[in-house]
């Protein structure tokens, strides 16, 4: 079991990981060059590379990406704020849990996108509807994970609170937040990813405005597959960067916990 294999080296791992997409791209390029598939529909990797470089130089692309990120930030921040408040209340109060828990649990099973038509009528199909939708998407994981985190607080810590008659602020800062921290951060981490997903979804489904989702749909209408792929890569890259950077934040904030020290 413990013998070292050739693929255990860093280079081996990297090489294997790159081999699959590289072969795929190569085959795609060759088949496109030979004219076996229509290169004007199935944009070859080379054309995608050209599209990436032209998008990077296009101010419209950056404006759209910026608009999407700003929309994402607003909606996600609102959602986190709401989810955190509601989650804390739900986690601390058995009464609230008894009344709201089952309804919230059932509501969570309703597919998120079902709300889009309703929101577009009630809140409007413009910026308001989009940001509300993003906020709803982001609030759900925060709410549930926060509530769970608070519920997992150790009874002896809460006893300490009662014993020392700690005030609300001290209680939250010294006991609730550190104890429920991992749950809350897990929720926020998911919220950041959901928020980005919802941003793209909102830009597809609500009235067209600016944003990377509108940009990619415009390219689709022109059947410009190279631009579609370039935009798709940008959207994916933003998701990965958000994920990785929040993972770092999470580890940094939880560095004092024994179980997070690996």
């Amino acid at each position, binding site marked *: 079991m413990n013998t070292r294999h050739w693929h255990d080296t860093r280079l081996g791992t990297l090489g294997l990981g790159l081999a*699959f997409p590289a072969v795929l791209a190569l085959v795609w390029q060759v088949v496109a060059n030979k004219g076996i598939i229509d290169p004007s529909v199935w944009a070859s990797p080379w054309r995608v590379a050209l599209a990436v470089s032209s998008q990077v130089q296009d101010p419209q692309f950056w404006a759209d990406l910026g608009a999407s990120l700003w929309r994402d930030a607003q909606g996600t921040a609102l959602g986190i704020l709401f989810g955190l408040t509601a989650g804390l209340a739900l986690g601390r109060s058995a009464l609230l849990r008894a009344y709201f828990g089952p309804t919230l649990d059932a509501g969570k099973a309703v597919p998120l996108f079902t709300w889009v038509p309703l929101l577009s009528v009630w809140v409007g199909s413009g910026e308001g509807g989009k940001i509300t939708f993003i906020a709803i998407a982001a609030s759900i994981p925060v709410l549930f994970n926060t509530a769970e985190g608070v519920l997992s607080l150790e009874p002896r810590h809460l006893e300490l609170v009662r014993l020392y008659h700690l005030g609300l602020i001290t209680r939250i800062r010294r006991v609730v937040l550190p104890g429920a921290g991992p749950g809350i951060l897990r929720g926020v981490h998911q919220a950041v990813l959901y928020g980005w997903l919802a941003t793209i979804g909102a830009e597809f489904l609500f009235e067209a405005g600016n944003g990377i989702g509108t940009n990619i749909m415009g390219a689709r209408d022109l059947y410009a597959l190279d631009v579609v792929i370039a935009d798709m890569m940008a959207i994916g890259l933003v998701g990965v960067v958000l994920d990785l950077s929040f993972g770092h934040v999470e580890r940094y904030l939880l560095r004092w916990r024994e179980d997070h020290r690996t």
Partner: protein
Amino acid sequence: MSGVADRQVIVLPARSNGQPYAVGQAWPRRLRFAAVPVLLFLLWQTSASFKLIPLLILPSPLQVWQAFLAAGASGTLTTALEVSLRRLALGYVFGVALGLPLGLLFAISPVIRKLIAPSFWFIVRVPLLAWIPFLMVLFGLGEALKLIIIAKAVMTPVTINTERAIHGIPAGWRELGRLYRLSPWVTLRRILFPATILPVFTGLRLGLVQAWAVLVAVELLASSNGIGFQLTMARQLFQLDTMLALMAVVGVIGFLLDRVLALAERRIGRRFGGAV
């Protein structure tokens, strides 16, 4: 519906923890969960009765019920549901057929894992919706688009949970099998199956719930039939009563899918609980 690895389902405990209640006494304990929905419904009915919100914006419960009956009677609802559920079933089968072997391969062969997993992760990480325009260019608005999207949504949790399940088999169990020189069949049936069934089933459940969510999204966006399309139609015709009725149908189906599988999961957990 997302590129997020997996979602936990947390059932908030509804039981009291023995704290004294000031308000809760009036309600029978077990019925307290009904208070919020009933209250919401009463608010809704009040608003409709006194026209606090224009009926065009928030139709009365009766209107929504009638719209539901009308959609059912005219056959639009049943046809749409049939189309959507068939899509769901087909896409789900594809997704599971891809996800289970992939998870298995990832778990047993480090070479294959290193070869494919980075590409798999890239596909997973690009939010599902961002694939839609790409697939629309390649496959148009037809069935293939929807099936691929659903299959991808299903495949993700199934693959991840299958791999995790196999890695999670306690080493002692396998040793036991070797020690007793169990035949491969008995090993599979007595050791591998009970040890992996629960986490694998969790993946299957998450996959189905996500598949339904994604199906609605893709039908809202790019479809000419199915329940999501009917929802868009009702929105465009500004028939909010039909829209709310359809939303309720989508919600109830999502809820039922989740609950039925969660129930089955608990059963499996009780039966094979010792495995984890």
